[in-house]
């Protein structure tokens, strides 16, 4: 649908008594609704606008933007697996236990991914975003349940993020590298999910097994019974990721489209 966005009606601040008898364009509808739907739209509009506000980290646009987006998520994951090493859950694990060895490997892998992106972005002639400050205030690093559930959230989010951002990459080289990383993230996600609950390595919460995708990824229209990963758009991803980032480190991904 394409209506003319810059109609006089939209540009001016309407007076309450004026426009009720004026033909209302669909896009103007929420101005007059004033009820639930309109309020929701306003909240979302507010978020959209604040994306550009001072204090957020803008990942940029184009291929460099996607690389910085990936760099941001890898920073978050690496910070998490670094911090958990000081918690009682990890330190209490036997050095020969499966869980300890898995968490060690994930720590190594995510640090490698993070540092790789910083180097690769620079090598590509672009500027890496700054080092982000995480906020893990809601994670209890002494609790196995809290740590593993957070790891599960990060790994599943990472897979969905890479899959959803693939379409924004124009270079086959970068697309291929993203593919090399996302399958490792999926391997992580599967084993972490299995640690939280056996045989949860696949599930309808992350795949279109019994219900269709309702993701905002424009090219992701997976039907039910297709068993495709539910990829997520950058804005959907940062809605979660920003909960784990401190003020001043929250991500603005409005350039990825």
């Amino acid at each position, binding site marked *: 649908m394409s209506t003319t966005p810059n109609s006089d009606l939209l540009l001016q601040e309407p007076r309450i008594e004026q426009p009720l008898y004026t033909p209302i364009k669909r896009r103007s509808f929420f101005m007059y609704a004033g009820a639930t739907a309109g309020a929701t739209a306003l909240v979302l509009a*507010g978020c959209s606008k604040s994306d550009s506000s001072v204090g957020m980290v803008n990942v940029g646009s184009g291929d460099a933007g996607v690389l910085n987006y990936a760099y941001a998520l890898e920073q978050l994951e690496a910070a998490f697996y670094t911090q958990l090493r000081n918690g009682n859950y990890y330190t209490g694990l036997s050095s020969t*236990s*499966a869980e300890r060895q898995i968490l060690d490997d994930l720590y190594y892998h995510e*640090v490698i991914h993070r540092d790789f992106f910083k180097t690769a972005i620079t090598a590509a002639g672009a500027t890496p975003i700054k080092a982000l400050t995480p906020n893990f205030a809601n994670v209890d690093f002494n609790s196995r349940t809290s740590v593993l559930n957070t790891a599960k959230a990060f790994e599943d989010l990472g897979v969905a993020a890479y899959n959803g951002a693939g379409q924004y990459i124009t270079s086959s080289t970068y*697309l291929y590298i993203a593919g090399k*990383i996302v399958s490792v993230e999926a391997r992580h996600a599967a084993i972490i999910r299995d640690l939280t609950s056996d045989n949860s390595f696949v599930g309808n919460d992350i795949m279109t097994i019994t219900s269709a995708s309702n993701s905002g990824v424009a090219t992701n229209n997976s039907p039910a019974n297709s068993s495709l990963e539910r990829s997520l758009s950058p804005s959907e991803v940062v809605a979660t990721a920003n909960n784990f980032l401190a003020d001043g480190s929250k991500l603005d991904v409005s350039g990825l489209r």
Partner: protein
Amino acid sequence: MNFFQIISEIEKVDPEVYDRLDSRRSVFKHMTGLGQKLTAAALPLAVGAIFNKVYAQTPVGAGVNDVLNFALKLEYLESYFYNNRTTVTGLSSQNSAALALIATDEANHVTFLRAVLGNNAIAAPATTGVFDYTAKGTFPTALTSANTYLAIAQAFEDTGVRAYKGAAPLVMTNKTVLTAALNIHSVEARHASHIRAMRRAGASSTTPAQGVPASPYTTAPKSWIVGNDGGGPVPGTTDAIYGAGNNSNAPSGITFESEANTTQGGVALSSSTITSIAFPSGSTAFSEAFDEGLDVGSVARIANLFSVTGNYFG
């Protein structure tokens, strides 16, 4: 707060704001001519038509159908394999349940790819007489011994991950197909991870995730690929699954390295270049952290080991 003012400001900056607030609308972008009367509830039935429409409208390399049909053949190979799981003995109930989950996914992938391809899809292979899971007698207990069965499952899943990864750049001109391919790719990787855990813990284990990795990885693999995986589950036969590909027709800027590769995008990865943390001496993490893709020809050679005619996969 003046709500009207905010809306007006947003409208000026981003005239499509309301379109984007409605996620269902994005589906309809691909449905011009099909009519926008379809409701969200009717979408699953219409998706096949959407893909056909996109394919018909988007000028892409003639190879996209070929790539998708090749993927479909691989999915049939996997799907029929998992449908044969009932003849295998020695699996724990937990592991049998996992194989049932994977079987559902592979059958779903077949259905999905057929819908995407529409009339361009290959004929479904017969359930018998097309695939030979013993690889002409190399694995005589392929469908009876749990250990052999899981070794072959790992081979199929790891190959599938490499195949979709290698093919992604071939379909990137069609964003819908690309996203679908990526969304299958990561599911195959989840399967591979779990199959590896099952092999690590033993076929009869009820807690696969608690299996402890040990060297050699061919018998107790990690959930990710260490170096060349020691030649895979059956060294001498499965080496190619973890080896380098054929680069003669590789897309620009892409080299199909072996799984042991530690140079990514021109960046050599080692404890000398990644110095922000200390790695254990001899750490294998630098190869584990990146999977590698394979070209279609190399995947076909691997898959043809399981073809009765030896050339089903081209």
